[in-house]
């Protein structure tokens, strides 16, 4: 993609306008170029594979969070859901009833894990729908509660995958693409299509952008939100399964603080907390920005600590710039 061609305003204007709408991609581009020049090991196919695998965990959840946040909701329970799903995935495959299934024992385990994620999402969504309690509070409670379930289930200990096929899975590649990256990209494409091409996806913008109008237009807002909570539950569970294949184990503290990272990625990608605005392209950019920054600074042997400071500052800066651009809407009244 050519980005700078000042002599021909026509073709150049379109990418520029696109970049104005997705400023995070400008940032991704800048850090990409910067790290490519600044370190030898960054611009390397193997490193790109690394980045994709490293970001897949947060990235998958961020896809779901985008949906939920476009609805004007939020889900703080994703880290705990991830841990519970990972525990199921690793534990169920060692159940006696599947002992004779060989490598097929992984199948019911992964199914169970994904179902757990969907069920927890459905529970959150149902509570938000029926009680009318703010999603922030509902999922804050769920964050604590589901983490409790993880501990109840695991009894505070880690589960280890006995079937090596399971932990080998994460090392698989299809052509140049690690299979984990492939799954992430496939999900990104799927959620992007869902959000931009389907009736459900388009309705998400109406539900978050103007809930009254959505209700008046006959969109069933409650079930709609519940479906999105189920999708994020599914994606958090999938993320947990993939993470546990990487580790060959599931620890009870898996995924702590992930909700904060995920929200950071999604907000960096331009999705509004108040709802009604955002897209997967932006979220993907936000996820990549975090991934490249972490990876690049690691390669430059900058201690990981600085990444936190930089990410936090960028998050606030994005918010500040957004506010500056949208200042005119207030009509000049000093409140």
């Amino acid at each position, binding site marked *: 993609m050519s980005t700078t061609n000042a002599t021909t305003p026509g073709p150049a204007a379109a990418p520029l306008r696109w970049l104005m709408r997705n400023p995070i991609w400008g940032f991704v581009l800048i850090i990409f170029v910067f790290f490519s020049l600044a370190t030898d090991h960054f611009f390397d196919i193997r490193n790109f594979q690394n980045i994709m695998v490293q970001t897949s965990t947060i990235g998958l959840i961020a896809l779901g969070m985008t949906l939920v946040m476009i609805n004007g909701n939020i889900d703080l329970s994703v880290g705990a859901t991830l841990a519970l799903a990972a525990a199921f995935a690793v534990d169920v495959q060692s159940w006696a009833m599947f002992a004779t299934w060989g490598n097929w024992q992984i199948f019911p385990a992964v199914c169970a894990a994904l179902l757990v994620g969907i069920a927890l999402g459905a529970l959150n969504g149902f509570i938000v729908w029926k009680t009318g309690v703010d999603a922030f509070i509902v999922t804050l409670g769920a964050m604590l509660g589901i983490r409790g379930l993880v501990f109840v289930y695991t009894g505070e200990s880690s589960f280890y995958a006995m079937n090596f096929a399971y932990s080998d899975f994460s090392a698989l590649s299809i052509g140049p693409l690690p299979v984990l990256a492939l799954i992430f990209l496939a999900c990104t494409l799927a959620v992007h299509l869902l959000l931009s091409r389907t009736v459900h996806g388009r309705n998400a913008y*109406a539900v978050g952008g103007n809930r009254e*109008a*959505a209700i*008046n*237009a006959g*969109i069933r807002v409650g079930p709609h939100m519940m479906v999105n909570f189920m999708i994020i539950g599914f994606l958090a569970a999938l993320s947990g399964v993939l993470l546990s294949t990487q580790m060959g184990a599931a620890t009870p503290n898996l995924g702590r603080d992930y909700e904060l990272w995920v929200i950071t990625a999604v907000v960096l990608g331009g999705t509004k907390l108040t709802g*009604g*605005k955002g897209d997967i392209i932006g979220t993907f950019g936000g996820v990549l920005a975090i991934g490249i920054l972490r990876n690049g600074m690691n390669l430059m042997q900058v201690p990981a600590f600085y990444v936190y400071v930089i990410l936090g500052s960028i998050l606030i800066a994005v918010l500040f710039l957004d506010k500056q651009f949208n200042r005119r809407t207030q009509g*000049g009244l*000093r409140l």
Partner: protein
Amino acid sequence: MTETTTQPALRLQDIVKTFPGVRALDGVSFEVMPGEVHALLGENGAGKSTLMKVLAGMYQPDEGLIFIGGGQVRVANPMEAKAQGIVLIHQELSLAPEMSAAENIYLGELPCKSFGRVDWKALYARSNAILERLRCRFRADALVADLSIANQQMVEIARALTVDARVVIFDEPTASLTDAEKVVLFDIITDLKAQGVGIVYISHRMDEIFTLSDRITVLRDGAYRGTLTTAETDEDAVTRLMIGRSLDLSQRVAAGEVGEVVLEARGLSCAPLYEDVSFQVRAGEVVGFYGLVGAGRTEIAETLFGLRTPNAGTILIDGKEVTIGSPQDAIRLGISLVPENRKEQGLVLGMNCRDNMTLPQVGDLTTGPFVSGGAEVSIFDQYRDRLAIKTPSWRQPVGFLSGGNQQKIVIGKWLSMQPRVLIVDEPTRGIDVGSKSEIHNLIRQLAGQGYAVIVISSEMPEVLHVADRIVAMYHGRVMRSFNAGEVTEDSLVQAISGIGNGKAA
């Protein structure tokens, strides 16, 4: 109109709708024939928008019957209304900003292929057809957030054309349209009319109503005041019906001595909201700012209260030039503002009556570092008695009070600060009839006690009743000033409609 045997497209009979503290609709009857434009007229708070929401299924009436095409129906929600062919075009836009125009036009009914995919081809084809019919210059795939307000309004109108409408309700549709866009809109209305669709047209603007409508129904204070055939009536008759009893100015409380000039503005501008505004307010007089919504009156009040920075002109208090950079500055100078929107700007609804009333001075009502509850209660008691505020106790959250009593709390809040200038913006909006005259008398009394009072209003009887002098505004400019004795309704209407001295058509 000739005798017809057709059923009305829509008929309401004796509709009653009450809200806590207000009887918004009091036995209103209304009908629209197929192919008729029926204008609904009334001042702010007369019940037009409530009636409209009943029509569109957004409110359930407490009493009364609704007939569509002759059969009695219950309209439980907007979808049912739409299914019955009744479409409301909102004044407040009900669009989702980050969706395309087409998606908004077909919101809730996006055409669908397999797997829930949106059928974009069909969506855009149909939407573009409608937009073309409306002669819109933008395409259906434009993002609503990128459209001008007028174009957003067009999207809203386009929505009505997606269904086989029996009745289309337009709520102040021209408020944000240019003249050219208005012409298009009127053509559309004529089209719809020719197709036998019944139109309910709500507007303030007499010229539009007389151009478009076949009949006019007037509401006042939530009650039905009569239906006129447009061809057989004139603006005078309609205005009289709107305003009601001819004004009895002799009843108004006499003001006291008019004193020195307290507040003066010279060439005050806050472009593009208002420009070159000059006026004086004396102690003991009420100056009324009269004009349509959007004429710049509220913005002047906000400037005087330190919430807007003027880009030209000066403000003088007692002849000395002052800068007012914040509400705190304004309060220090003795200026106070009873804002237009009581619930959003005037009150903290969850807070009790006493705390709301003493809010601006709570920092001064202290013994040591603590708020003196006793001092607060005594101030509250004093103004409760003086303003006759009805509340069981000062502990009552103001949200539970009636509109009139809420307004008195806001007025009391500022009176207890002993201001020199009291600005009251739309003092009786959303307040029932009884309390209205009470508030009017109160304002007269305050002037009598030596306050310099500014009343901003878009209700003619209110300014006529309350003001000693009237400043008429149009599009951010002062058109004329009148003394209460010499003003006529005609001249006032002309001034705020931007008509010079010529007679209105």
